[in-house]
């Protein structure tokens, strides 16, 4: 096509901005963001941590689950501004620095607990959050189903994810309740 004059285009939204200071994967982060920016978009597009996925933007599917001060939370239902002062953990922090998989990730691999992998980071963060709680784990079939009941997966039919949770508990030396 013929070269045209490049149109003048605004660089960014004119939305009101707010300063946020938070910890992400152990690192202090300070940014000026739109007041309505979702935490999921902040992590993905401002910080480049695209491992956190967005599946529904209404808090049902669990793809966007991150740990907020250690607890699993929906980054699509949280504003970046609300995360001010909090500590956020994303999937990018889970494997070792050399890429060695965390036992929860390893268990997913061994048990074929993922297919397309889109829901997987949210699954892993949710499971990790629960594993790091003090309360004992219920590793019965029903207990694991309950643990996973905030995360949708459309590929696997869940049974291999249930097996992966059990395998992860084994790898981490977690004893059932």
């Amino acid at each position, binding site marked *: *096509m013929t*070269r045209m004059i*490049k*149109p003048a*285009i*605004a*660089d*960014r*939204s004119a*939305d009101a901005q707010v300063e946020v200071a938070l910890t992400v994967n152990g690192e202090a982060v300070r940014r000026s963001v*739109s007041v*309505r920016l979702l935490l999921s978009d902040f992590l*993905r597009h401002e910080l*480049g941590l*695209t*491992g956190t*996925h*967005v*599946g*529904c*933007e*209404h808090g*049902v*599917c669990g*793809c966007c689950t991150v740990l907020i001060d250690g607890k699993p939370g929906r980054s699509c239902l949280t504003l970046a501004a609300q995360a001010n002062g909090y500590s956020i953990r994303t*999937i*990018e922090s*889970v*494997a070792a620095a050399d*890429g060695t*998989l965390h036992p929860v*990730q390893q268990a*997913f*691999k061994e048990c*074929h607990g*993922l*297919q*397309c*992998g*889109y*829901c*997987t980071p949210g699954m*892993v963060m949710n499971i990790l959050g629960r594993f790091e709680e003090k309360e004992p784990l219920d590793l019965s079939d029903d207990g*694991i*189903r*309950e643990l*996973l*009941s905030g*995360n*949708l*997966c*459309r*590929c*696997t*039919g*869940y*049974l*291999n*994810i*249930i097996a992966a949770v059990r395998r992860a508990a084994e790898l981490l030396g977690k004893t059932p309740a």
Partner: protein
Amino acid sequence: MSTRMFGARIERNVDPKLLRGEGAFVDDIPLPDALHVAFLRSPHARARINSIDTAAAKASSGVVAIYTCDDIGALDVEMPLLIPHPSMTNPQTQRPLARGDVHYVGQTIAMVVAVDRYIAEDAAALIEVDYAPLPVEMDIVKALDDGAPRVHAAIPNNLAAHFVQTSGDPDGAFAAAEHVTKITVQVDRSTAAPMECRAVAARWEAVTGELTVWDGTQAPISVRGGLASVFGLDEDKVRVIAPDVGGGFGQKVLLFYPDELLVPMAAMQLGRPVKYIEDRRENFIGSSQERTQIHTIELAALKSGEVIGLRDFFLHDTGAFIPYGIAVAQVASTSIAGPYRIPNIFVEFKAVYTPTVQVTPYRGCGRPQACFALERAMDQLAQELGLDRFEIRRRNLVADNQFPYAREGLLFADGLKVTLDSGQYGKALAMAATELGAENFAVAQAKALSDGRYLGLGLACYVEGTGLGPYEGGHVKIHPITGKVYVNTGLSTQGQGHDTVFAQIVADQLGVSPQDVIVVEGDTKAFDWGVATFASRAAVVSGNAIHKTAATVRKKVLQAAANMLDADIDSIELRDSAAWIKGSNRFVPLAAIATASNPLRYAFNKAAQAATQFAPASKHDGPPLAEGEAPGLEATDYYSPSQSTWAYGVHGAIVEVDPGLCTVKIKKYVCIHDCGNMINPMLVEGQVMGGIAQGIGGALYEHLDYQSDGNLANASLMDFLVPYATEIPNVSILHLETPSPLNALGVKGVGEAGCIAVGAVIASGVEDALRPFGALRFHQVPLSPTMIADVLERAGH
């Protein structure tokens, strides 16, 4: 590596990346300075557009461009009819942006491009459209009436297609019948709901004149061809990449969705990368759906239970447009006799336009509907003849020695005659009975009933035509530096594990570890001959193409190694990424063979140096590269199947129904299936289990709730009930492996298998459980508590 990799349960190559959050889905790909798209969509199912006013939207800060149908030039046309067929009269296809009329809620009317998605959505809300709403008919039966409101002014009776197929002598069979049973059944509208919605991003390189499009599509090569023709570019100047894709299940095989054309167009016009990331509501209202069919099926039988004839008439809801032709209805009509001999068949369908988003294949593609019709009819026939449900099936299954079993007159979706190629149908049924404990079930059922619990056994058989043509290709190359093997094919993957199963096929040929086979697909710059990922065809068609290609490379390796080791070619074996003289410790690494097979001037690394210690890889006089020879260890080949391979299976379940709450609990679920030789049983089970979970959704929960005005009342994951882990029972999956005689690997497809029989199984089980309340009929899925309550109430309970 001397162990055979084909058939091994090995872990997937792709997993570490996905598990670490390093997947690259479309919206993960960094595109500096990208602009973002939002669409204005119709709130009416049918309306005339009197005017569109974009002034306020255009004036708002951060908005870069707004397009209506008047602003998109050559793109303001009807999209292609992808699969033509003479059964359609005046087939209607979608336009990128509505012109004059809207035909469903969710149809795209205007596209906003802005600095971010938030601003783009705000601006879309500022566009003023003056609509004159028109009446609609949502019921596909009434839509065919004379005078029914039309989806398209030019199409009377909303009739999109009408097709009849006949096999044998159905009239003769019905005349000879000793018993005829007839039922009407319905499967409702559903949607694939992949976890990643659709997504398209585009970048135009003005300097090189190259358009790069990242598209979460199942058909990148076809999208490339389409984009090149629409924009008048050479195909080589258009690169379409389907990167990691978060599930497809058929929804992502359609082309073109509006965004697939308009996003590249905007990128070319605006000189900036442009991105459209569909949100969940848009996926519900704007991306293809499937399933609604109403079948009236009759079986002509002898007193023995032998079914000698079948008549089926069905209506198929094709939505507002029919871009994928009659594929879904045609697959349903040609699957209608399932695994049974039934030699005389009459099957007729009418495809009906409704003011809803277009219908194109969703995993199963008409098979779940056909299976539901046939299997519910078989249950009814068994009951009327006083036969056991297993027994009546046993008496009708195609026997092992009857293959290939052809249905003259029935043409499958590949245009070829339906011919069931192989199987052990009777054995599969027997295995299901054993695994379910069918023999002793009546006792358990009676005991439960005495405790006030209602248990039922459900059962269904299915066949699945898989591995459709026309063809796919494979490219295999052993890398000179690392000895790793690169493999390409023209498909894209949405989580099936292509990268691992294709690696297993190649590993066996070349004696390497599957981890050292790198499969790259979904990129038209990696391989650009091929069709798409659909119809459970990847393992069959690409798998065999890659197998053929790897065998050619193997021959090259053996010859070169024999030359280098100065040995007889028959004495060479390939293992551990090297060629060995059998029974000796003399070997040469594949990397060295690959290096030596490429006449070199410069010894740039150790392999190149080492290669010089051996005799030349190619033994001949004359120039280093003989006439007709190519450098390196590389080949490209293709596989074009002679016909579809037919997989099959038997599913069964024990369910418990609470007649008070009208809930259904699946106590036990059994799946016996046969997809021929399994490349990786772990991945096969994953495919089957995923399909079963979607089938359970379709059997009990997933129903798109269109209101009488055409609005979708449950366009969110909060209201459209995709099963969580809490809804999926434990399942036992047992395999049979009857090799397909049709291809070298003996494989059949498996992608869609799991979902096909589930609705029929659950309805069969619920009917059995509630038999103490009378002969209740469950002829529609999903089977909601309300439907169960209604049936019980009609029976006086």
